[in-house]
C-alpha cells in the first residue's frame, strides 16, 4: 500500500493502541494534523505546548502506558522541552512528535526552524530525526518500544514537513514490538540479600517510584509484612504503601518526617527498591544512614552506585525482586525495632493541634470531603510538600507530582491528563498562586473537556518555598518572592467558563467546599492562607537528614 509520512504516523499510533493525542497544530505539522482529521483518534487541543506535554504525562502516569503529544517546529518544539525533561527525570513514557521545516530549509534559519533533535538529546531517553520516509515505520515502532521498556522515559520523533507529505510503498505498518523480557533476578544475589535482611536487627525499606512503575505495591506489602520491615518512601514513592499501615513511616528526606529520618539514621540496613538516592531524599549523602549496609535494587543498572555505594545490589524490576525475595525472607519478630520507630513518631511527629485554617488542616479537610479514591496532582512549592506530608493517598498511581525536575505549572495539565486516562475518578489538583499561573491557560482546555478536575489553590500571595529559603538561609533578604497584586483566581476561572470559588482559610464554608469537590465537572477553589507558614520539618540544603529544622525551633 502507498502511504504518506503523515499516514504512516497516524496508522502507527493506531497500531500502538493510541486513541487520544494532545498538542497544538502549526505550519510544520499540518500534514499530520490533516491526517488526524478522520483518523478516529481524539485530539485534545492544549493552549500551550508545555501544557500538551504535561497532559500527555498525566495520561501516561495514570495509565502506565506511553502517551503522545504533538507540536509544530520552532517555538512549538521548544515549548515542549520542559515537559519532556520532566518526563525524563520522573521516568514517564511520553512520545513527542514534532514537525520540522522541510529538508531544503534545514540549516537556513528558516521560519520556525530550530534544532529540535539537538536540543532534546540530553533530556530524552532517545531522539529520532527522520530524514528518510523509509525509516519512519520502524522509527515509530521503536519510539513506543523505547519509551515503555525497562526504565520508561520520553522519546522524541522530529519529522520534517516534506517527509510528512512524501509517499512510500510499504507492505504494512509494523506491529508493536514486544517489550524486552525482564531478566529474572539471580538466585544467588537474592539469597545474599535475603540473608542480609534476615540477619538485620534494624532494617528499613526505602521505596521509590520504581515500585509504582512496576505495579509492585502488593508485593512490597507482602514482603514488608512477612519480614516486619518498616517502609519509608521518596516523593515519587508516595502511594506505594497504605498510609495507615502500622509499618508505614511516610516520607523520607528534606521535607520528610523527623521520625523517619531519625529511624534511617539508626538503621543497620537500608533496602532501597526502585529509588535513586536523590539529593532531596538523602540530604548530605555522606551522612545518610551512616551505620547501615545498603541494598540497592533498581531496573536501571546505571543507578547502581551512581550516588551511594551499595553493599549488595541487583539490577531488577522491583516486582520481580520483591516476589523472589519474599521466598527467601524469614518471618521475623522485629517488635523491638518497630516499637522504637513508634516511639520516634511519638517524640518527633507530634500531632500539633493545628487550627483549621492551617494549610495541613485544609488539605486534611479536602481529603475528607473529596470522593474516596480520588487521584491527586500537585504543582511545585510549599503546597506540594504539605500535600506530600499529609494526604492519605490510596495505593497505586494516585499521586502525581514533579519529583525530579520540580516544574511549577505541572499540576493542572497533568491533572487533565490523568482525568482523561481515568474518567471514573475525581482528580484533585493542589496548586499555589505562583505555580498555577505558569500554566493557567490550560483551564481553557479543562473547560473544553468538562472533566472532574478540582483545582485547589492555597493562595499565600507569594512564592512561598523560595521565600522560606530566604527567611531561613538568606538572612531574611526577601526579594522577588512576594506578589504586589492579588490575583482573583475565581474570577479568572469564571472567565474560562469554570466554576470559581474564593474562600478565606479562616472561614471555610464546608458545604460549599464539599459541593465543589463532589459535583461533576471542573471547579477551581481558591483558598487564601497566611503567608507566614513554612514547611516544617526541613533539612537545610547540604546538611545531613538528621539535622532537621523543626517548627518549634523557628516559630
Amino acid at each position: 500500500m502507498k502511504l504518506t509520512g503523515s499516514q504512516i504516523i497516524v496508522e502507527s499510533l493506531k497500531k500502538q493502541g493510541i486513541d487520544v493525542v494532545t498538542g497544538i497544530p502549526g505550519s510544520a505539522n499540518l500534514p499530520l494534523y490533516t491526517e488526524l482529521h478522520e483518523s478516529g483518534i481524539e485530539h485534545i487541543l492544549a493552549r500551550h505546548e508545555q501544557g500538551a506535554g504535561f497532559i500527555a504525562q498525566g495520561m501516561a502516569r495514570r495509565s502506565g502506558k506511553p502517551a503522545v503529544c504533538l507540536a509544530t517546529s520552532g517555538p512549538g518544539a521548544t515549548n515542549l522541552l520542559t515537559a519532556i525533561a520532566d518526563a525524563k527525570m520522573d521516568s514517564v513514557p511520553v512520545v513527542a512528535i514534532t514537525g520540522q521545516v522541510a529538508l531544503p530549509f534545514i540549516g537556513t534559519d528558516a521560519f520556525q526552524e530550530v534544532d529540535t533533535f539537538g536540543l532534546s538529546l540530553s533530556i530524552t531517553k532517545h531522539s529520532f530525526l527522520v530524514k528518510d520516509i523509509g525509516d519512519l515505520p520502524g522509527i515509530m515502532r521503536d519510539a513506543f518500544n523505547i519509551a515503555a521498556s525497562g526504565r520508561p522515559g520520553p522519546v522524541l520523533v522530529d519529522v520534517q514537513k516534506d517527509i510528512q507529505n512524501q509517499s512510500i510503498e510499504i507492505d504494512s505498518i509494523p506491529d508493536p514490538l514486544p517489550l524486552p523480557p525482564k531478566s529474572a533476578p539471580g538466585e544467588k544475589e537474592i539469597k545474599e540479600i535475603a540473608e542480609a535482611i534476615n540477619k538485620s536487627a534494624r532494617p528499613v525499606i526505602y521505596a521509590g517510584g520504581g515500585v509504582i512503575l512496576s505495579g509492585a505495591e502488593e508485593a512490597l506489602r507482602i514482603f514488608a509484612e512477612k519480614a516486619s520491615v518498616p517502609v519509608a518512601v521518596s516523593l515519587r514513592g508516595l502511594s506505594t504503601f497504605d498510609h495507615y499501615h502500622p509499618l508505614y513511616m511516610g516520607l523520607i528526606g528534606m521535607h520528610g518526617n523527623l521520625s523517619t529520618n531519625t529511624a534511617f539514621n539508626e538503621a543497620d540496613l537500608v533496602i532501597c527498591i526502585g529509588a535513586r538516592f536523590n539529593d532531596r531524599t538523602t540530604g548530605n549523602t555522606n551522612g545518610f544512614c551512616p551505620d547501615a549496609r545498603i541494598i540497592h535494587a533498581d531496573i536501571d543498572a546505571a543507578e547502581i552506585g551512581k550516588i551511594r555505594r551499595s553493599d549488595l545490589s541487583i539490577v531488577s524490576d522491583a516486582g520481580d525482586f520483591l516476589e523472589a525475595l519474599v521466598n527467601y525472607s524469614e518471618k521475623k519478630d522485629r517488635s523491638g525495632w518497630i516499637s522504637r520507630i513508634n516511639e520516634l513518631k511519638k517524640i518527633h511527629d507530634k500531632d500539633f493541634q493545628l487550627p483549621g485554617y492551617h494549610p495541613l488542616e485544609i488539605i486534611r479537610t479536602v481529603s475528607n470531603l473529596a470522593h474516596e479514591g480520588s487521584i491527586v496532582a500537585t504543582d511545585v512549592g510549599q503546597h506540594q510538600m504539605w500535600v506530600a506530608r499529609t494526604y492519605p493517598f490510596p495505593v497505586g498511581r494516585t499521586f502525581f507530582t514533579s519529583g525530579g525536575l520540580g516544574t511549577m505549572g505541572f499540576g493542572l495539565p497533568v491533572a487533565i491528563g490523568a482525568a482523561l486516562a481515568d474518567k471514573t475518578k475525581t482528580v484533585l489538583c493542589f496548586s499555589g498562586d505562583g505555580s498555577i499561573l505558569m500554566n493557567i491557560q490550560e483551564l481553557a482546555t479543562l473547560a473544553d473537556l468538562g472533566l472532574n478536575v478540582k483545582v485547589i489553590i492555597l493562595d499565600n500571595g507569594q512564592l512561598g518555598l523560595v521565600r522560606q529559603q530566604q527567611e531561613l538561609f538568606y538572612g531574611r533578604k526577601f526579594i522577588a518572592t512576594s506578589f504586589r497584586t492579588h490575583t482573583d483566581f475565581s474570577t479568572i476561572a469564571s472567565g474560562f467558563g469554570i466554576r470559581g470559588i474564593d474562600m478565606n482559610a479562616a472561614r471555610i464554608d464546608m458545604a460549599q467546599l464539599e459541593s465543589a469537590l463532589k459535583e461533576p465537572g471542573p471547579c477551581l477553589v481558591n483558598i487564601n492562607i497566611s503567608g507566614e507558614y513554612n514547611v516544617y520539618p526541613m533539612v537545610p540544603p547540604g546538611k545531613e537528614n538528621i539535622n532537621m529544622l523543626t517548627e518549634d525551633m523557628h516559630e
Partner: protein
Amino acid sequence: MNNHTLVIRAKKHAGTITTLASFFSRRNIDVEKMSCSADNCGAEMLCTVKCSSPASVTNIVPHLNNMHDVIDAYYSE
C-alpha cells in the same frame, strides 16, 4: 583498566556522534579526543573517546549502555 579512555560501539546514523557529544557534555566530562570509524559494513561505528580526566568518579559505562544507539561500551584495557 584505563578510565580515561572509553571504547563505544554504536549504531551508525545521522545524530549518533551528536548524541554521544551531548552525553559527555551533560556530565561535565572533558573530551580530549573522540575518533570514530565505520564498522560492520558501515552499519555500526566504533568510537574511542579519550577524556581529559577520569571519565567519572562513578562507572559511566552503564549510563552509556542505556543509550539506544550504543551497542556496547567499555573502558579501554
